[in-house]
């Protein structure tokens, strides 16, 4: 076994050195041509230049990066934009032959949804994680989209010391214990080796909830909240975070309720809301759980209090399902609006639109997750899961597409900005930024 591995490594090194020389030549040619390089972020160019020098004195090979996202069902379109963005990052950082840090990068996109479930599936997610663990070339796992899916794969990858970077998970309990929000023994239970291997490039709901409350309390001057959640991990976590922040600010939570997402109507709940007379209604949940129908019944009952959800409803599916009753509804999402992104972020979106069409709110984070992984591979400079994991954890003051940020000790991004959107004439219109605690 040992000999076979050594042979394979040497063979890969030769191939890698050859391919990297070709990369250098290709880069020189591209640089001579000018235009393609102009749109590639500077960091990506740096990596490629350093890759060339590394290739001269270091053994290479193939490093495989897996992504696990729901590519079947209603999340398919959104997830596909993340896959596209990851591929763009790989092209930007690895050039035409996709080589970074002396290693040929092989990106494999996995689907964690099934047609039967119609969405992400726990068993499929575990299968994907086990597949990555069993692959000796696999060093980084990008995903998941759904927080519930991450609960399945983090422990599997943790035992294999494989870095996992999510472009979309927001449930706090994956990285930290938050009083009144996360379950007992979270997040410890996801890390059997006690070493953190999970990171995310989006802000978590324990920040999103407070940012939403901050908007309600400061902009609309609301003080009587009604909280509704869809009973799922994400929705309940967000509602709990809102509740916690409301209490911290000494604001009243005049009622709360949980929906199942398949009710024939929500008139009884709307009556409950009406009787509580709130001046702001929060919803924690996703668009597939009928928040549109819920809002229609709340509005039909005569309640006019503003309605706000998190990133789970910051999408066209909610806008369509709510119809006219959705007009004026708010939603928040981590990050900045397109026009406030750093220049390289705006440039990415421009290039994305030209190539693939309209991006979604998480597309840019797909790019960011892949970029962090490639940076770590470059920094580690060896095909070793532990070394790459350590390099990911050390990500600091990273000058990415969404700004300059670091991973904190829990593996969370240090960015805390949330954008507030409002439905106006059937589209999500940006209103303003909000930050927790403000």
């Amino acid at each position, binding site marked *: 076994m040992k000999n076979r591995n050594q042979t394979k490594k040497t063979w890969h090194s030769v191939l890698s050195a050859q391919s990297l020389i070709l990369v250098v030549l290709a880069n020189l040619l591209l640089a001579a041509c000018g235009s393609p390089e102009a749109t590639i972020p500077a960091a990506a160019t740096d990596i490629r230049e350093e890759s060339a020098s590394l290739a001269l004195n270091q053994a290479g090979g193939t490093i495989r990066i897996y992504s696990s996202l729901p590519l079947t069902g209603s999340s398919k379109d959104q997830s596909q934009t993340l896959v596209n963005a990851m591929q763009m990052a790989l092209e930007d950082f690895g050039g035409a032959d996709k080589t970074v840090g002396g290693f040929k990068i092989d990106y494999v996109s996995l689907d964690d949804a099934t047609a039967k479930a119609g969405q992400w599936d726990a068993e499929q997610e575990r299968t994907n994680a086990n597949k990555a663990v069993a692959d000796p070339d696999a060093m980084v796992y990008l995903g998941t989209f759904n927080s519930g899916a991450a609960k399945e794969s983090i422990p599997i990858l943790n035992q294999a010391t494989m870095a996992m970077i999510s472009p979309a998970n927001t449930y706090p309990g994956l990285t930290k214990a938050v009083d009144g929000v996360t379950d007992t023994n979270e997040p410890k239970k996801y890390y059997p080796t006690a070493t953190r291997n999970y990171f995310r490039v989006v802000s978590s709901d324990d920040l999103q909830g407070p940012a939403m409350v901050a908007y309600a309390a400061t902009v609309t001057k609301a003080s009587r909240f009604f909280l509704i959640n869809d009973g799922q991990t994400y929705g309940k976590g967000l509602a709990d975070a809102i509740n916690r922040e409301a209490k911290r600010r000494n604001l009243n939570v005049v009622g709360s309720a949980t929906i199942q997402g398949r009710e024939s109507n929500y008139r009884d709940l709307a009556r409950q809301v009406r009787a509580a007379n709130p001046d702001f209604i929060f919803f924690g949940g996703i668009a597939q759980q009928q928040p549109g129908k819920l809002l229609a019944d709340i509005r039909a009952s005569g309640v006019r209090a503003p309605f706000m959800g998190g990133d789970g409803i910051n999408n066209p599916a909610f806008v369509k399902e709510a*119809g006219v009753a959705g*007009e004026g509804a708010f939603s928040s999402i981590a990050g900045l609006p397109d026009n406030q992104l750093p220049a390289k972020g705006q440039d990415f979106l421009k290039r994305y639109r030209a190539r693939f069409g309209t991006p979604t709110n998480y597309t840019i984070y797909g790019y960011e997750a892949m970029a962090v992984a490639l940076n770590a591979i470059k920094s580690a400079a060896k095909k070793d899961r532990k070394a790459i994991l350590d390099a990911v954890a050390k990500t600091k003051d990273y000058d990415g597409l969404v700004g300059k940020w670091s991973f904190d000790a829990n593996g969370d991004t240090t960015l805390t900005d949330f954008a507030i959107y409002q439905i106006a004439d059937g589209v999500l219109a940006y209103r303003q930024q909000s930050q927790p605690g403000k």
Partner: protein
Amino acid sequence: MAVATPTKLTTSGNGAGVFRNNPLRTQVMVVIWVLVALAVIAFLAAISTTNARIQTFQKIAAVAVPSINATNDAIQLLSGEVSNTAEYILAGQGKASAGLDSATSANDPTAQKQAILKKIETQRAAYDRALQEGYTALIGPDFTAQPDSQTALNYISSRNARLHDALAQARGLSDKAKTPEDIQTAIQAYLNGQNDHYQPVISSLYYLRSVNIFLLEDAEKDATSAAAFQQNLAAVAMVIFVLALLGANIWLTLRVKRILLPLVNVALVAVAVYSFFLFSVFSTSANDLAKVVDSYNRTSLSSDANLFITDAVADQVQLVISNDPIYKEDLKKKQELLLATRNDKNELVTDPTLLTECPATSTARSSYKPEGVMGDICRNISQPAELTAYTQFLGGYKSWLATNTSFDNLVKINKSDEALALRAGDGAKAYKQMSGALTNLRDLSKAEYKTKSQSGTDSLNLANTLAWVIYPLALLLAGLGLFLWRREF
């Protein structure tokens, strides 16, 4: 009515005279008369309030019911139009379509398309008519929710126009399609139009309907709470008068050794009987009003069920023509919204073997487990004919689920043509059975609404009319009787 005039008084010594001159006697008499007068005034005020609220309910129902009907019709017709456009594109490809007129040859795509187009035009015209006829009701003065009705109707109108254009464009592209790419373009135009504009219209119609259901339910609650108040007053009045009747009779019997005090007794008996009658009427009427609203809610549930099955059969076509699993997911969601039950893992499933019949007794129905709109309908069934229609629906649904499983399996192995043929055969039969049962359920609910509404209104009107006769008459009789027997006091 004969009046018994006391010609000879039998006294029992000095007691009567003493009492007659006792100031306490006057005070007791005054208190009794004041209490009786207050009871009567309160009772009449309550009757008046109930009358006003019932009239309000009737006024609101006169607006809300046509609004609910209009939105139900519009929802069904629009879903039918979208579904039939999918059938039209299928027929254009020479594939088996379930939207065909039975007289049309399946081998003649042109005839098939013409038949479907005729259906679409009929549905479109009926949709417009439904909203036009319901327009006055939909913008009724009681609509105070925000967004207001005019905003909602404008929103619906603009999205509906875009949907209509997109569907027409898709059909046009389908007609002109000569290559597989052309067909794909037509399919994409259809799917984009449906994805972008259909749901906002359906959701906004749902909102309008919900506003009117709230108006109806709130008015019903106001009316029943007033009726309940009046019912309680009737009970109190009944008790007061029965006690007064007994007290007067016992006392007078002891004093005059005669039981027959015709006028007083007639008055008190009349009021007591009437109070009991009112108690019963208000109790029944409150139930009737609740049933009126329940029955109307069931029409909406039946309409939603029809929407879900129509969308589900459209999802089958959309899955085949687009090969996009999102339609499979949507179909699954429609099934869950329609009728599903929970398995051991607490997951919603539509396994036909787990879907039980709607129980025959109302007690068992109230604990019926399956979820979705049909579960709600079962739990609220109030007449045997509805139970029969429900059983008919369930039979169709189970058949359709079975064909859908086979349909899925055929699609999975790329036998789409066979899958579509199955859908156009057994699938269409099952769909018609479900749709027929749901239409029947809806008609039964409407009929129950009319019956209960009429009987509730009639009995309340009768009770209220009688009140204005009985109470003055009872007071007159009691007053006259006591006046005639005044020396006995």
